[in-house]
Each structure stands twice: as structure tokens, then as C-alpha cells.
């Protein structure tokens, strides 16, 4: 029963996100506030539906919903949409949704396309440190996903201004300054979160697996990602790295996160493998 309703909820969520995404794409062509409001409404509805689904899932498996790859994708989509909805309230850059919402749809589709079975509850997965590890890493990465979108928007806009060829997006995209500060804000929120995420992960590993470091491919990539963002933040504060370079770094950083997230799980082996039975 629960499984069936989970599937239905997941389907409805994907549908709502997709309609929201289509709305945001229409918004680019016809900049009407009403269209944006409707698209935002669909995303919000999808988010609530998604939250309900995740709550049911957690109630059923009694641990963080990251036991399989589909669950992980779904949780990540949820974190992206949630962070976006919050950022939109704060910054009100309407066209941002056009770039973020497709990401959510992609992750939802991946989540339903990839088979994955739920593994039985293990004692390992109920530690406070693990919960902290998973939630901070997911929200932090979701915010970096936003920075990735902001980076793409920045590069698109910067290219148009530099080359003096203005397309449809020139008017829709906000100013370079706004996009750059969006990137910075994402960095200041995301970096502390993934830092906490890494530390809690090490603490958990040290306590449960009796060693902080395992040369697990995911661990290595995660540290590399962390270093990239650390360099970006440092250079930004120290010598004023901004604009194009910061945008490219945000894009590279998130690409490595994606590799860590998907690639390492599918291809490489290690204790972070979600599908491990």
C-alpha cells in the first residue's frame, strides 16, 4: 500500500515539477508576472507533494532516504527545489527558475528511471552524525546547484555584453552584478554546510567504521570539491575573484559534485555506494 502511494506521489511530483518547468520556459518568451506566479505555484505544489512522499518513505524505512540511488536523486531534487523556493523569496530573480527547475525534473526522471530496491534497516544508519552528514551535504550541494545555474546565467549574460550581440535572454537575465552576488551568496551558504557535512561524515566514519579515512573514491572527490569551493571563497575574499572566473569555478565545482554523486556510485565501489544490498 505504502509503496504504491509512494510511486503515485513521486509521479505527481514529477508532473508538477514538469508543468512548473514548462511555465518557466514560457515565462522566458512572454515575460508576464502571472505566468511566473503560476510556474512558481506548480513548483511549490510539487515541493509539498514531494515532502509528503519523503515523509512517508522515511516513516516506512526508518532512516534517511538515501538507501538507493533513486531515493538519493529524489532527495537531491527535493533539496534543489526547496533551496530555490527559498532563494526566490529572498532575491526575486524570476528567470532563475527557468534554469533551476529543469534540474529538478532531470533528477526526478533519473530517480524513476533507475531501478533500486530498498535495503533493510541497519543499525548503522540511525546515528545523529549520519543524519547531520546527509542533510548538510544534500542542502549544501543543492545550493551549489543554484550557484551552478547562476554561473551559467552569468556566462550567458556576460557573453552577450562582451560580444555585443544581444539575444532573447539579454533582457530576461538580470545584471551581471546581481548574478555575481547570487553566486557569492550561494557560496557563503553552501560552503559552511558542506564543511559541516564533511566533518560529520568523518566523525561518523571514525565512530562506526573505526577509521576517519578509507580512500573511498567518493571521499576523495568530496574533498577535491571542498577544496575547489574553498579556493573560490578564499580568492574571492582575498583578491576579489569575481565575475566570469567565479562563474566558471561554480560550474566546475558542481560538475565534480555530479561526478561524485552519480559516477562514483555507478562505476566505482566503496562504502558510499547507494545500491549496495
Amino acid at each position, binding site marked *: 500500500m505504502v509503496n504504491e502511494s509512494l510511486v503515485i506521489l513521486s509521479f505527481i511530483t514529477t508532473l508538477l515539477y514538469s508543468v512548473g518547468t514548462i511555465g518557466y520556459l514560457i515565462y522566458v518568451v512572454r515575460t508576464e508576472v502571472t505566468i511566473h506566479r503560476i510556474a512558481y505555484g506548480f513548483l511549490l505544489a510539487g515541493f509539498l507533494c514531494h515532502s509528503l512522499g519523503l515523509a512517508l518513505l522515511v516513516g516506512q524505512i526508518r532512516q534517511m532516504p538515501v538507501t538507493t540511488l533513486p531515493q538519493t536523486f529524489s532527495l537531491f531534487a527535493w533539496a534543489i527545489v526547496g533551496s530555490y523556493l527559498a532563494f526566490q523569496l529572498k532575491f526575486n530573480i524570476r528567470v532563475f527558475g527557468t534554469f533551476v527547475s529543469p534540474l529538478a525534473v532531470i533528477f526526478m526522471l533519473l530517480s524513476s528511471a533507475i531501478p533500486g530496491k530498498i535495503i533493510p534497516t541497519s543499525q548503522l544508519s540511525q546515528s545523529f552524525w549520519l543524519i547531520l552528514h546527509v542533510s548538510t551535504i544534500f542542502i549544501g550541494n543543492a545550493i551549489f546547484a543554484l550557484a551552478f545555474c547562476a554561473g551559467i546565467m552569468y556566462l550567458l549574460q556576460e557573453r552577450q555584453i562582451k560580444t555585443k550581440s544581444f539575444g532573447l535572454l539579454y533582457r530576461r537575465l538580470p545584471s551581471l552584478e546581481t548574478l555575481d552576488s547570487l553566486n557569492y551568496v550561494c557560496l557563503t551558504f553552501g560552503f559552511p554546510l558542506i564543511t559541516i557535512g564533511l566533518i560529520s561524515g568523518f566523525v561518523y566514519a571514525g565512530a562506526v567504521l573505526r577509521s576517519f579515512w578509507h580512500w573511498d573514491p567518493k571521499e576523495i572527490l568530496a574533498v577535491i570539491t571542498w577544496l575547489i569551493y574553498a579556493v573560490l571563497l578564499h580568492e574571492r575574499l582575498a*583578491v576579489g575573484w569575481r565575475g566570469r572566473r567565479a562563474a566558471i569555478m561554480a560550474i566546475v565545482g558542481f560538475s565534480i559534485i555530479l561526478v561524485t554523486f552519480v559516477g562514483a556510485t555507478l562505476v566505482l565501489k566503496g562504502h558510499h555506494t547507494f545500491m549496495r544490498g
Partner: protein
Amino acid sequence: MDRIVLIGLNHKTAPVEIRERFNLVCMDTRGPLSDLVRLRSLRESFYLSTCNRMEVLCTSPRLDEGIGAVVGLLGEIYGQTGAALKPYLYIHIDQDAVKHLFRVACSLDSMVVGEPQILGQIKDAYRQATEVKAPGVVLNRLLHKSFSVAKRVRTETRIGSSAVSISYAAVELAKKIFGELEGKTALLIGAGEMAELAAEHLISNGIERIAVANRTLERAMALARRFNGSTVPWEELVEELRKTDIIISSTGSPEPILTGKQVRKRMRARRNRPLFFIDIAVPRDIDPEVNRIDNVYLYNIDDLQGIVEINRAERIKEAARAEHIISAEALKFDTWLRTLEVVPTIVSLREKAEQIRETEIRKTLAQLDSLSGGEIEAIHILTRSVVNKLLHDPILFLKRISTRSRKDLYLDVARKFFRLDEDQPETEEGEDQLSLDSDKVS
């Protein structure tokens, strides 16, 4: 029913010698507004005059007479007869008049399509007109509608959003780079009409400080005074790059005054904050190499001119969307106007009923002199509610038919049915009603 008439001339129909005549007339006085109000063939009126147009908007119960009177009056102002002026005039009636007013308010009929001043001018003219109570129910509604249509067109199309002058195009670009211009500083190198215009635009868009550099100090000081800014010695021009955000350059120098190398070196000191060069000089003042530096943007006069051309073309495209909105809104206004047509019938129906009620009450009370005040009041309340209940459905019906094409027929029947027109020939129903009346009297 009154007709809406719009008589006017604009830059397309009349040469400047004629247009300026009307512009002068309204400089010192209210213009012909006071004369318009006096015209007996008009019910409501409104007068607008700008450099490029003159429009008289009015409603008249007698169309031809009204038009003749207005054209005659305009001819007088022009100093000739109405017939002499007629070739320059356009006359729009009803829906066409409404659409024309909307098009004017939305700046679709302007010389520079999309320029925003016209709406303010209409609002001013409207204020003047209301002071002498020239517009009434219809024109008040129509003019207010034109304001909201203009606002809708402005928000839903990009008719007025793109810059069609070089200096404004520069400001728009600056906004796309810096976001808000508050707290930013600009450096003006050299002088020239276009550069000064751009500086003025920057100031009105919130730029905080303007510095001026010129080879001749006197000129620099004069400009600095004008923009309430400071002067920069010519020799320290390059160092000023650390502090400034926008550079407008228009010197007569034959070779570049700033090279890519000079700019690149200052970017680190600026902590890579963006730098925007507007080079309006020919030959160019800024080395084109500068545009390759990260966070530095360089636009020369041709680049800006290119933007202006694109924007002009876009405005024309957006105008088509605006026309669509205007047609829809004109239709909505027409619907409202139609409901107005049934109002007189409803009013006379109510009046007639009230009249009958009062007459009958008077007769009844004359025979019953022993009633107390409370009892008289009760009779009033009773009769009033009978009348209201009885009229409720017919009035609703009349309101409902107001948008139908055959409403004239319905209105005619309604007026005959209740015999609302005194001079109505007595029909059979009329006789029946008469005999009923006489029954009551006897």
C-alpha cells in the same frame, strides 16, 4: 445615445506651421477648452495639445452638428475657416475614436513610438479639463481607461523599454553590468554634447559622483561645476581607473589615450570590480584590446548605434502586440458604453413607478385621516417594497440585454410596455393601460 467624436491633427497629417499654431494658443490660456464647453451641440469635451498633435475629444447627441461646431471652432483658432483646416484633420467616431485615444496614450501614434511623455501630457490636459468640468460620465471613464491601457501596454509589451538614443543605450548597458547605479562613480574624459547627455542620464539614474578630466582645466572645471563633480588632472587619468566604474570618453585625440596594458594593470587594485568604457570619440580613445580583459566592457559609438537600431526595430514589432491589447480594451469600453444605453430606461421606469406610488398614496391618505404616524410609515414601506419587488426582474433583464445586438428592440418594447415616453403614440396596450387607470380613479 450620444456619439463619441475625436477630431485632431498630428505630425503625420499637418505640417509644423499648423501644429505650432495650436500649441501657441494653449500656452497662456486653457486653450479652446472654455469655448468647447460652451458649444451647445456637445455634451462632454476634452482638449489635448502637444508639439506634435492636437486632439479634441467630445460626445455629442447630434453627430453632424457637433462635428461642424468643433471644426468651425478650430478654424477660428487657426485664424481661418473650418473648411481651410479640414484637409489636415482626421475625424474618428465611436469605436475608432476610442481606439485612437488609446493609441495616442500608449505612444503608438507618437513620432518616436514608445516615448513615455505623452501619457503625462494627457494626464495634465485631463486635469485642466476637469477643472472646468468639461468631461462627464463617458469621457471621465474613457480617459481613465486610456491611462490604464497605457500602463498595461507598458508592462506587457516592451514598447518603451528599449533605448532609442545612444546616451540612453549606454545607461541601459551600465544597468545590465552594475545593476543599480547608486554608489557608482563615472569619469568623463573630454567634452561633447553626446558625452554630456550620457553623463546627465547617468546622474538621473542614480550615479553617485562624476569626475571630469580634460586637457584644458577651465573646461574641466566648468563641466565639473555643471555636474556637481570634481576634476581629475590629465596626468592622473590612468590612476583614476582605480576609483571609477564608468568611463565616458570623447576627446579629439588622434591616438588612443588608454591602452589595454594600462587598464589590465589597474584591475587587480580594483579587486576586479567591473569597469565600463563608453567610447564616443572618433577616432577612438580607448584601445579595443581593453574589451578582452575580464570584467571590463568597452562600447564604442558604432556598438551603441547598433543597439539603437535593433531597439527601433523591436519597438515596431512590439507595437503590433500593443495594438492587440488596444483592440481588446476598446471592445471592453464599448461593452460598458452599451450598459449606459439602458440606464435612461431603467431610470425612467423607476421614476414612473415612484410617481404612481406617490399619487396613489396621496389619494388613499386623503380618505384615511385617522391613521397614526407609524401606520402611515408602514403603508409607505409596504408600497415601496411592492414597487421594488415588481421592478426587480424587469431591471435585471434590461441590464442583461445591454450587451446584446438586438437591445434596441428590447429597449423599445420595454419603453412601450411601460409607456415611458409621453409622446408615444397611443397603441392598444396604451389604451388598455388608460382604461385601467380610469378604473382605479373611479
